[in-house]
């Protein structure tokens, strides 16, 4: 770019900024994005930084999509998704998590779980509403709330409690303006899960304070030891909950962008209105693939879960062996070790680990309060890569200790 054009593009940028809506202008790019830019310049990196499966979508799922294209399935579907897919989702949720939804008006197929969360928030938020978000958590919730004019209120969870949400922590943050509670268990980035007993006092508070819950259960299939308990399955909670789930993590289908939301017909109808005016419907090829995944993909899913569980043991053990304390992650595919013993901040640790040891992991502070002093290590990568990454991290920490 010549100096002149650079100058004029800068001028443009400056002048265009004034047109932006302040709530959008004020949003910061995600810390993940910043770290991604840093990592992509380096070579020979082993990455523990990816939030997606290392498996490729099972062949039979891809093949079903290819075959449907050959037969010319390329048109719009009904706004809420094909009836076959909604029915299969209903059946799957009932069989797996004991929650019953009517495919006709309680299930909406979306473009990834992300769209479902956005729709739910846009349908619910009035300017000034307070949206409660346990943190550390997936990076998108607070910005989407802010874009919608709501006020994100973070509830800090901690490693001593295995990053579970405690009723007193929630109660502390509830005000008359509180409207929605966003839950994300199994949790990205901590790997924390909630049991039935953990949920009961939370459900009580939700009821007493008349909250609506958006429960992002995208990692519901990835639990190790305890079966996932859907918030919607708790007594009295179904009508108060918008359950969000999708195909990305369970069936290794991140790039297909297939998700869904389930809830009370009036809530789903409100979300459907926004959905139909923005994206019309989820892509038909994705819906075909998702249906095949639900119909014939459960065995492969089980195999993937078993494999994650093995790597989970390897990583947690490995991190502890090199001197990092790490709570037992019981879900998702992340370990969230503390790096406080090194005296470095999360950012410093992650940057030096990247530059000096060629291992990419995500600094915990990007996931909100309580994440500082931690590092997100994804174990969705091969055993040999994980072993090598742990090896490099061990040497790095040894070097740090020697000063």
């Amino acid at each position, binding site marked *: 770019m010549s100096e002149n054009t650079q100058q004029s593009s800068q001028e443009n940028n400056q002048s265009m900024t004034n047109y932006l809506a302040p709530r959008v202008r004020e949003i910061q790019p995600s810390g993940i994005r910043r770290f991604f830019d840093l*990592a992509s310049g380096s070579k020979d990196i082993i990455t523990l930084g990816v939030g997606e499966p*290392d498996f490729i979508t099972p062949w039979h799922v891809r093949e079903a999509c290819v075959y449907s294209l050959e037969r010319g399935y390329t048109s719009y579907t009904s706004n809420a998704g094909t009836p076959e897919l909604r029915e299969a989702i209903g059946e799957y949720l009932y069989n797996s998590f004991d929650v019953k939804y009517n495919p006709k008006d309680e299930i909406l197929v979306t473009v990834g779980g992300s769209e479902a969360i956005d729709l739910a928030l846009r349908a619910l938020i009035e300017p000034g509403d307070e949206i409660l978000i346990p943190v550390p958590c997936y990076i998108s919730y607070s910005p989407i709330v802010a874009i919608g004019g709501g006020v994100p209120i973070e509830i800090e969870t901690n490693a001593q409690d295995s990053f579970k949400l405690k009723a007193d922590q929630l109660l502390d943050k509830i005000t008359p303006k509180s409207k929605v509670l966003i839950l994300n268990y199994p949790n990205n980035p901590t790997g924390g899960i909630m049991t039935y007993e953990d949920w009961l006092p939370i459900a009580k508070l939700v009821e007493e304070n008349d909250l609506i819950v958006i429960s992002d259960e995208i990692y519901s299939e990835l639990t190790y030891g305890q079966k996932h308990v859907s918030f919607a399955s708790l007594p009295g909670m179904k009508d108060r909950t918008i359950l969000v789930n999708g195909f990305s993590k369970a069936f290794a289908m991140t790039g297909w962008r297939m998700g869904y939301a389930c809830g009370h017909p009036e809530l789903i109808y409100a979300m459907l209105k926004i959905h139909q005016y923005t994206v019309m419907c989820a892509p038909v090829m994705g819906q075909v693939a998702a249906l095949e995944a639900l119909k014939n993909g459960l065995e492969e899913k089980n195999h993937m879960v078993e494999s994650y569980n093995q*790597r989970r043991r390897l990583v947690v053990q490995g991190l502890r062996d090199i001197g990092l304390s790490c709570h037992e992650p019981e879900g998702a595919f992340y370990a969230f070790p503390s790096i406080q013993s090194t005296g470095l901040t999360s950012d410093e640790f992650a940057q030096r680990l990247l530059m000096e040891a060629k291992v990419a992991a995500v600094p915990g502070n990007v996931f909100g309060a309580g994440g500082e002093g931690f590092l997100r290590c994804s174990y969705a990568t091969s*055993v040999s890569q994980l072993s090598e990454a742990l090896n490099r991290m061990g040497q790095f920490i040894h070097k740090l200790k020697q000063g």
Partner: protein
Amino acid sequence: MKQLSELKLKVLDLLKEDARRDPSLLATLLGVTSEEVTEAINELEEDRVIVKYATVINSSKLDDEKVTALIEVQITPERGRGFEAIAERIYLFPQVMSVYLMSGAYDLLVEVEGRNLKEVASFVSDKLSPLESVLSTKTHFILKKYKQDGIIFEDPEEDRRLLISP
């Protein structure tokens, strides 16, 4: 045949992926002790469930590429011993890599490896065909191996995922 324990089945799965994994790694992956893994492996070896730890070689990457042929063999079974005796005669030849009793149009499928075409051809004409109970042979040379023992020979595709993602 005895039922294998769940641990043994999992050990087999992991070793099938990579036979060089040591017991301590397997123990960590499976959440058991190294001793339990070692004991399981010892028993699997003793019972000849694990027969050998082999290396799968993509010989097309080597200069001294070998020639492999699959030979369909039709046979007159022997009274009392069926196909066993002739199968044994055949599998004892060092050129023979594998022998399978098949259903269908022929009886034995014999995999033969040689340094070149001529060597395989002379094995078939000099050793295999003259055997008394062999009625006919049909030799198919392998032109290219795409996949063997569940392993795809093409260079693995690189990880297309971003280095960092949410």
